[in-house]
């Protein structure tokens, strides 16, 4: 294992994050605050408790998930797309590193960034509502797994994308709708019955539900299913990344 190489990639990626620290952290904080003003104060004041939790607190896990998933994807996809775009990928390909080391460096950095952003949002939310975390270790595990799996997914998008438009395509067209429809701002039990069945086909429902369970002890689907969903998603992403490096898909001819 070429540990210095993993560390070099990780540090290099983290440096970019810290170089733009204000933009990296300030924008999620501002957008979270806006969500609280709109959903928590303006709309939330007209909604009674959801599953025994005040609406303002109820949306906290969903909000964190929303940011963590989108940030993990955008950080990881940009991280590997940029070297492809400017040509510095040659250096990775000609270095004595294997695919696992490259992935650990890039995905590790993207996951760390999104984890930091998740924690910052959690702290920001604490200024608006009272937050109780019933299962803190489970919360951390769900958060970490989401950061890792969505960073892996972002890495795949970054390899696949051939231009900046494609880089944005999947996050905008697929991920954001899935997150919004995945119960980030509501419990799926609030949906009409037929839509509840449809919602169960949305993988994000399982992630948000499990994460919310770690806060409040209530969930749309069983926690076991949530764990299985995230483990399955991580596994699929790892498989695709392994295949990419085995075949050199879009990085090596």
């Amino acid at each position: 294992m070429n540990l210095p190489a993993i560390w070099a990639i990780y540090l290099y990626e983290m440096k970019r994050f810290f170089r733009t620290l204000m933009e990296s952290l300030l924008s999620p904080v501002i957008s979270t605050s806006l969500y609280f003003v709109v959903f928590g104060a303006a709309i939330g004041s007209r909604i009674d408790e959801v599953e025994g939790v005040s609406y303002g607190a109820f949306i906290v896990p969903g909000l964190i998930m929303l940011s963590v998933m989108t940030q993990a994807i955008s950080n990881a996809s940009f991280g590997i797309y940029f070297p492809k775009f400017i040509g510095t990928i040659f250096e990775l390909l000609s270095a004595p590193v294997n695919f696992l080391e490259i992935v650990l460096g890039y995905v590790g950095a993207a996951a760390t960034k999104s984890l930091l952003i998740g924690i910052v949002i959690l702290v920001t939310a604490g200024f608006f509502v009272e937050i109780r975390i019933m299962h803190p270790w489970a919360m951390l595990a769900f958060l970490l797994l989401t950061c890792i799996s969505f960073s892996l997914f972002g890495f795949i998008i970054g390899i696949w994308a051939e231009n900046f438009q494609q880089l944005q395509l999947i996050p905008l067209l697929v991920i954001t709708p899935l997150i919004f429809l995945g119960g980030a701002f509501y419990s799926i039990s609030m949906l009409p019955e037929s839509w509840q069945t449809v919602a169960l086909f949305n993988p994000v429902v399982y992630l948000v539900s499990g994460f919310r369970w770690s806060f409040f002890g209530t969930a749309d689907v069983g926690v076991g299913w949530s764990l299985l969903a995230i483990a399955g998603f991580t596994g699929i992403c790892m498989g695709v990344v392994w295949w990419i490096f085995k075949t050199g898909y879009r990085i090596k001819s």
Partner: protein
Amino acid sequence: MTAIVDVQNMGKVYAGRFTALSGVSLQIEQGEIIALLGPNGAGKTTLISALCGIVTPSSGRATVGGHDVVTGYRKARAMIGLVPQEIALEPFEKVINTVRFSRGLFGKRRDDALIEKILRQLSLWDKRNSRIRELSGGMKRRVLIAKALCHEPRVLFLDEPTAGVDVELRRDMWQVVEDLRQSGVTIILTTHYIEEAEAIADRIAVISKGRILLVEPTADLMARMGQKTLRIDLMERLEAVPEALAGYDVSLSADGTSLSYTYEAGGERTGITRLLQALAAEGLALRDIQTKQSSLEEIFVGLIKEGEA
């Protein structure tokens, strides 16, 4: 001498159609400078890329320092430094950070003293905290060299190191290459400038359409191929070549204002002195004199014809 780079019958076919390399075999000895000379699209970059791990060879095999570039890629690549043809650098990064990153990528621990030495050698030390985008094109190329050297490679690939580089920087580059050779580094450079190959390479491998046409010591090749033409512009028009010059292989231009004389640059006697003396004896006043080396294309045409014969 042992071959530090050994390429055996290597081929590369892109996307099942375009053949970029075909049965290339090449042995490069430790400590030498070899130039891969060929026109654009000859397969020079593909050959280098296959040895460095950027493209996967379709057939054949190669070793660097005895390590197979595919199955023993870690050890092989650890010995290789690569300076690519295109300037590919992250514009917002500082010079010193990007060089440190390269060293880390090759599994080496941070070594500030070594990086300072390399940056000083390449006149980059003063720019170490500059961001890449603030540097000139020539400086960026030096950064690429610094990145390739920072893990102390034994074999250095320079892909068109002086393409688009001004004369002064070109001379500096050649000096850097010579210094590296002194320290025992084997250097493989690609170029389509014959002057460059002639100036710094010990041996020249001519490559065209994915095949190595020949590998020869530079001096031998230049002597064999180096035909030059001397062009003499005259002050006054001539109707015909003066009789006194009949013994020379001299031709008169259509407008009668210049004479051309072809000779072997590598020959012991070029005949130039005698020709000029004869011109003076004829009382011809000269406006200008210039010599022209056979161009690379001409040499290629010659080589390909030889190959067909």
